[in-house]
């Protein structure tokens, strides 16, 4: 009985450890798409940067101008962002978290700089329905030049 119990405990521990291992790699390996947005917020309430250097998780800085939107892929949930305004010379450094179950989030640079929460939001892609339903034909503007000696086949 005792050995049986012992064995059961060992086995249960192993199973738990296994599941835990899956959970760990799941959390640490999870990839998220991050859209980096440098547009004005709420029609000018917070202005966009004219020219800004952004570095995430110590990667090489990327330069953004007003109205830029970029896409990058991040691994894990907690990240550090460094924003350097090239015009004013100010430097902001922040840590942000991406929820585990979000595949695609958008980060507003102006909000990060002004410290307004939340500066990371879930990204809702453009709905297909919003696309024009009926605007004429498919653009087949690429008709090849018909050769003059047309009739190929009798």
């Amino acid at each position: 009985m005792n050995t049986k119990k012992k064995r059961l405990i060992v086995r249960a521990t192993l199973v738990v450890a296994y599941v835990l291992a899956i959970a760990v790699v799941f959390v640490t390996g999870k990839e998220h798409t991050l859209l980096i947005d440098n547009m004005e917020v709420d029609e000018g309430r917070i202005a966009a940067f004219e020219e800004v250097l952004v570095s995430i998780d110590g990667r090489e800085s990327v330069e953004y101008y007003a109205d830029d939107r970029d896409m990058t892929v991040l691994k894990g949930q907690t990240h550090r962002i460094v924003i350097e305004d090239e015009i004013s010379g100010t430097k902001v450094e922040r840590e942000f978290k991406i929820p585990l179950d979000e595949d695609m989030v958008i980060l507003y640079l102006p909000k990060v700089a002004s410290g307004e929460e939340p500066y990371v939001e879930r990204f809702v892609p453009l709905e297909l329905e919003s696309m024009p339903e009926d605007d004429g034909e498919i653009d087949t503007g690429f008709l090849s030049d018909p050769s003059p000696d047309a009739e190929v086949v009798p």
Partner: protein
Amino acid sequence: MKGLPKSAIVLLVVAFALSSTNVFAGPAYHIGICTETVSQAEDDLRGAEQLIKEYGAVSEGGIIQHITYPDDFMSQQETVISNLVALADDPLMKAIVTCNALPGVAEAYKRIRAKRPDILLLAALPAEDPLVIQKAADLVVDLDFVSRGYTIVWGAKQLGAETFVHISFPRHMSYETLGRRRAIMEAACNDLGLKFVFETAPDPTSDVGISGAQQFILEKVPQYLQKYGPKGEKVALFCTNDAQTEPLIQQIIASKNGIFVEPDTASPLMGFPGALGLDLSAEKGDFPAIVAKIEKAIVAKGASGRLGTWSYSTGFSLTAGMGELAKRVLDGKAKLTKVQDIYSAIGKYTPGAQWNGALYTDMSTGVKAKNELLVYMDTYVFGKGYLGSTKVKIPAKYALIKR
């Protein structure tokens, strides 16, 4: 066993030494062409041979290096990739063309690009996801599955069909382009007043083999025709697999009410010569003459005005055309992604035929790809003439149909 590895190593080293002694002389660059074997896709292979005829094979001091995929390319991606990467081993290699860019080509192109960024990478008729292959290749040309989804159904209507039967199987429906085209066809049928039917056939790559799959078509087509056209109403049939096209054509010719607008990989050589048992040795290489001969045979069998195809072979003209384009670009005579340059290179092998097409537009983002061109040609109906499908206006909504 003991002495073996040592002597083996010595021998291999000697062999290596011999291998690196080859000296190239002659042309300034080489162009690699990869097609399927003759048993999988004759047209593509003949396109490559046409290029060899014009520009010579590398082994004979020319510029074309032609290789083929393994026959069972799906199971042997390792070979697909390494054969393509091996092309980049040649320092003079400046462009690689794959016609039927099968699964694995994108990965191979990625590896080639990492090693040799100077090589132009062209892919025709890709099997991989558009976004994946667009990223890997410099230029992608595919059949316009969006437009054809509409024009084929439209063509069936022109020929008097009341029902449209789409024959395929799960593996093919797992291709994004084929699956979407099926959905477009279904929608087009609804709009044009045809009845759409989906029929499943066995997959030729499964255990029944090509023969079992063809056998199925041979047996079932007369039944379909009877089931969907019991009073002799015309029924159009379309199948996505090339191997199944031949028995399909044969049964449609034998029937009274079958319609066949065009094969999936449209070509006069696709299915017709085999189904009709034609001897084309005299017409070898002359597509107009081949079409004329097929037409004669079909009219003689009383199937005039019921079967069609393109007047030139897709595989042949795209393979040869892409090779020609690569050469023109390397010679500085053309720009790789300029549409008229692409048409003019392909047009060299399709004199007199008109192509139509559009740049690929991604459905979810609405972004137009700069390097993927979708093309199609007019349908030629035997005993009737051209249908004019390149001039049909296609409503824009079909481009958004997903499933």
